[in-house]
């Protein structure tokens, strides 16, 4: 009924479905951490609220906006490739990359400041603060760390994809890899959309 195969057949729809399934696994992968967050928060409400004061909302908000813009630009890149505008596609991808790097730099300073203050898993200061704080910062480092790891992987993938666009391996007829990269990047964005209020805003 649907398209039929042989090994080198190009099936846009199928590849995209595979990507969606992968995104589902990612959602549940982070989901596990969100469960732990939810339960820990429920049990240590005040400590979580106090600990959240330690984080800088401005940094978080800036990073949120950076990711949102990068998400939009990669989505535009997908439109551009279909419009057969190779150069514009590349420009959009480049902007996405730059924004991703800026996000990481921001993160680096944010983490650096925390670690300088002696707040990191297993640190002396944290041990003295109490259970809720230990959990909060444990989750903070684990979740934003895992998220940053995804950003790094995303940067590598976008680089590869850009080269492929440049070499015209990816073009208006065959762009599912670009679209899938976009999907992945949006997922990373969505996860951040939730991390931001959970760690920075709710106090």
């Amino acid at each position, binding site marked *: *009924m*649907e*398209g*039929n*195969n*042989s*090994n080198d057949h190009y*099936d846009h*729809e*199928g590849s995209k*479905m*595979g990507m969606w*399934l*992968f995104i*589902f*696994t*990612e*959602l*549940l*992968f*982070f*989901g*596990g*951490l969100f*469960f*732990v967050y939810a*339960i*820990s928060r429920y*049990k*240590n409400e005040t400590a979580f609220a106090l600990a959240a004061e330690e984080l800088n909302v401005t940094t978080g908000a800036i990073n949120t906006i950076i990711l949102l813009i990068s998400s939009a630009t990669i989505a535009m890149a997908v439109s551009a490739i279909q419009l057969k505008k190779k150069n514009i596609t590349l420009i959009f991808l480049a902007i996405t990359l730059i924004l991703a790097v800026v996000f990481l730099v921001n993160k680096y300073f944010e983490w650096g400041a925390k670690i300088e203050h002696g707040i990191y*898993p*297993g640190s002396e200061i944290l041990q003295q603060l*109490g*259970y*809720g704080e*230990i*959990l909060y910062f*444990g*989750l903070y*480092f*684990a979740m934003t760390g895992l998220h940053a790891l995804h950003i790094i992987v995303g940067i590598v993938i976008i680089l590869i994809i850009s080269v492929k666009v440049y070499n015209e391996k990816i073009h208006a007829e065959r762009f599912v890899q670009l679209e899938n990269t976009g999907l992945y990047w949006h997922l990373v964005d969505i996860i951040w959309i939730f991390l931001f209020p959970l760690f920075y805003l709710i106090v």
Partner: protein
Amino acid sequence: MSNSNLPNYLEYKGKYKGLLGWIFSTDHKRIGLLYLYSVMTFFIVGALLGLLMKFELIAPGKTIMEAKSYNAIFTLHGITMIFLIVIPGIPAILGNFFLPIMIGAKDVFYPKLNLISWWLYILGAVVALSSQFMHGASPDTGWTFYAPYSFRTQSNVLPALIGAFILGFSSILTGINFIVTMHRLRAPGMKWLKMPLFPWSLYGTAWIQVLATPIIGITLLMVVAERVLNIGFFDPALGGDPVLYQHLFWIYSHPAVYIMILPSMGVISEVIPTFARKEIFGYNAVVISTLLIAFVGYFVWGHHMFTAGMSETSLFAFSFLTFLVAIPSAIKTFNWLATLYKGSIILKTPMYWAVSFLFIFMIGGLSGMVLGSLAANVHLHDTAFVVAHFHFIVFGGVGFGFFAGIHYWFPKIFGRMYDASWADTGWLIFFIGFLTLYAPMFYLGITGMPRRYYDYVPEFHPANIISSFGAFIMIAGLAIIIINLIRSAKKGPKAEESPWGGKTLEWTVSSPPIVENFEEIPEIK
């Protein structure tokens, strides 16, 4: 389209020769066989570990090993059996081999990813098993890695955790691959409700693999973080909650038991109609029950934690849902039985396995009902009764399903027939050994013998002797079965295209199948 002159997949020469031609082949059939050989190897390891435990338990006190070794052995036995054998088992071996053929495709959707899954499987296995040979003690946590013991113990738990994590990845990739294959590559005319039942069962399984496995992945990573970084998610000394660990572990591991059993049920749903020479009774009901098991099975994990101190609401909900999840299994059982009604039954080796599957699966499943009851569970939780339940349903259900499948499809896979009388003898000895081995454990559990016990009080002695004796009978059976199959794969007489008169697509292609299965993609009317 039979009697093709094209080379079959066993003889085909690709880019590489010899062994390399296998371990780098993206042909789904070769990958299926790679899995077959690796899983069987681990199975023999795991089975021998089981045997060692039975030697130890034959008498109270020290028999052949120290408590330390016993704890390490049941941990390794559990990890190999669950993560290396029954979870990948049927989907990766029989599923890989037959799913594309049964839906009329040339290969799975992502052949390369398929190969990567196998490599990940091997990598995960090597990492997990390396824990045995590294400096320090072998892991001794049980396959459940319960917190906080799993980060208190000094043994090499890390490699076991990371190995299990990698194996999870392999499982996810197989799942993704199968779902896309079934969505995109069904032969023209094969509507969803014309798809054979084995692919259907793999479809349900694949969704569980995709949606449940990530949870165990992240949970195991959290335990790793706990050990390495002292983060404290589950450590009461740092404010964490050990029961939360159990929730997360079972959120995966209960659905995982349906990852194990569903494909096995799929095999049975193929074997029974073929040998009853009749269509399956109530095709739609069987399909729906498959999907229901997959869905409801997601929400019953708490029945492993009835005594862990959960809230009353949870206890109520989980016990209730546990009973509900039995219904789809019951529907399946009744449909299988009804298929036999007014059939014309040929009793050959695969059918012996299928029928004994029914019997043993019923015992296993029905004993699950006893465990699902709150009051009875208080008494039976963490006793030999649970051990009996899950050996009946995991080993009995999945193992018997697998043996049914392998005897059913053997002629198709290898193009040769096995010796039926040896196979039947092996089955009989195995079946008797199985009952002798595990039935006494129900009794032991009811009289109160806890599980994971290296030593026990004398009143448990008699039943343990019988049980150990059963293990020895089973060795004999298993050895006959395996030796017979290995010998026949090389030397057996050439098999016909369709030795049993099966109706599904795989029986229309040559034995063994050609490289891309079909010369021409069949059209289903």
